[in-house]
């Protein structure tokens, strides 16, 4: 009974995330790869994504705080984050990374900071939604 309730709760959360455009169809692919032999696959990948992203966000914050930003280093972190968010279907984060990359190319520090804030917002939003179900 509890499992059934949990499953429908998860379904509801995911549906809202899809509707909001927070997740895209790549997340379906992840779910499709999970099966009886690999029941923990989605949780494993999502957990890796959190750990990875938290580290990356700390680094990005640090580098952007410097008076003279190391654009190449920053852009390389953004590229990594764009890749991983795309791989798990975190659409909003991926889109914000695209803006961030453009801001780096334009040497637009304000644009970079804006994009970083957007990413942080989307990341914590996603994390909190998942936590309600994964716990």
């Amino acid at each position, binding site marked *: 009974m509890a499992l059934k309730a949990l499953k429908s709760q998860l379904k509801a959360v995911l549906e809202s995330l899809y509707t909001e455009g927070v997740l895209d169809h*790549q997340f379906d*692919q*992840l779910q*499709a*790869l999970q*099966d009886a032999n*690999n029941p923990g*696959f989605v949780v*494993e*990948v999502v957990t*890796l*994504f959190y750990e*990875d992203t938290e580290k990356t966000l700390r680094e990005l914050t640090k580098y952007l705080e410097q008076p003279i930003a190391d654009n190449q280093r920053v852009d390389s972190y953004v*590229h*990594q984050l*764009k*890749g*991983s968010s*795309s*791989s*798990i*279907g975190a659409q909003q984060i991926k889109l914000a990374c695209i803006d961030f990359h453009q801001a780096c190319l334009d040497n637009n520090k304000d644009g970079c900071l804006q994009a970083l804030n957007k990413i942080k917002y989307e990341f914590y939003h996603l994390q909190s939604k998942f936590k309600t179900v994964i716990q």
Partner: protein
Amino acid sequence: MGMAAEAQFHVLAVDDSLIDRKLIERLLKTSSYQVTTVDSGSKALEFLGLREDDQTDPNPPSVSSNHHEMEVNLIITDYCMPGMTGYDLLKKIKESSSLKDIPVVIMSSENVPSRISRCLEEGAEEFFLKPVQLSDVNRLRPHLLKGKLKEQQEQLQIEQLLPLPPPPPPAVQQQQLQPQPPSNKRKAIEEGLSPERRRPRYSGLAMV
């Protein structure tokens, strides 16, 4: 060792992103391939037994106890990696006489036509856009089967070149000079080949 059952294909996946390695591993395992993942081009070359000076290492380092025996049937690599890019890795593989026949597939998160054509011209079989889908992985099978077929054909050619065993000397000594069991003959042939040709075989043609 009787008739070998359908041998599993072994894919080497190269990507600096841990998440992407997890993903590609799951995609490949779902398709019943054996998978080894490494996080860089240089580790890939090390695994394949290619040393810095481009000579095949006769004793490639084993990642796990079985890896000495494991042939790699396909290499799938990310394009954008620090240090050696997927393109650099592709080039090194195609320049190596021992590795050039292994099919290579490139993955990239960016759809850059010039990048794609450069890789295909250099000998990549396919170019997948990330995130890689199960439908992409399904496209690997023909390349793997083609590679296996080529290998079996080469095997047949080698066996057809086997010299006839020397005729046994007359009568008395005959018992001591039984025709060599097939495995010794194979061993002699294997040793006769240059180190570069030495790839462990476990195809269906393996002799008992």
